[in-house]
């Protein structure tokens, strides 16, 4: 589902993806494992989900991503074993 370089010979990478709050309901899952081409970024990962579930696209501007429990830019490259989460606006307190 990545738009970057072909992964013909390179091994794919595998990341864990978490959804929370309204996004979890929209995604229909709290947790998923995803295989991507090496060099994929967080934005590629999300694009893969919106390809499968177009209704997720409207959350794109009102969510932030995290990589291994740190907020991360959409352009952040992924490594195998990463834990990526998509987080709607927080409302704790």
């Amino acid at each position: 589902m990545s738009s970057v370089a072909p992964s013909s010979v390179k091994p794919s990478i595998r990341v864990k993806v978490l959804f929370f709050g309204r996004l979890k309901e929209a995604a229909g899952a709290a947790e998923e494992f995803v295989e991507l081409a090496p060099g994929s970024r967080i934005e590629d990962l999300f694009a893969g989900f919106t390809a499968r579930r177009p209704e997720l696209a409207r959350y794109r501007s009102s969510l932030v991503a995290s990589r291994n429990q740190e907020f991360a830019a959409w352009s952040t490259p992924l490594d195998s074993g990463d834990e990526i989460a998509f987080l709607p606006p927080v409302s704790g307190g």
Partner: protein
Amino acid sequence: MATPPSSDLILLVHQGIDADALVHHVRTGADGAIVTFDGCVRNQSHGRRTLYLDYEAYESMALAKMGEIAAEVHTKFPIDRVAIAHRLGRLEIGETSVFIAVSAPHRAAAFEACRYAIDTLKRSVPIWKKEYFEDGAVWADGELPPVPQDTQARKSAS
């Protein structure tokens, strides 16, 4: 990111928050002031009667972020100890969802640090609140946490 001093207490709990234990934790003989913030469930939201709330969290990250807030508070204010607890799951009206206690030699720092801690928690800790009304439930409006500059994207675009 900095880790909080071991004297701080950071908790996510699924039962009632023991506020006395948190206050006891921060109280030392060196302190002249303890300020606490108790966030509790209101019986209404934007004029609609609330039945109860349900909180969920990205627990590992929430704990890490709460610890970072405690560490940051130590660097910004001359305080002694910090305790932060957030409750998850279903909460009834009047129950405490978040409790913060800060001790300090003097009161100005205790007030400012406690206020800073709750303001920052509400903006940056991955916890979500769903509000249940008589005619349905909604995820509460929230705030988008600040994210690091998108430097990678700029580099690859040049």
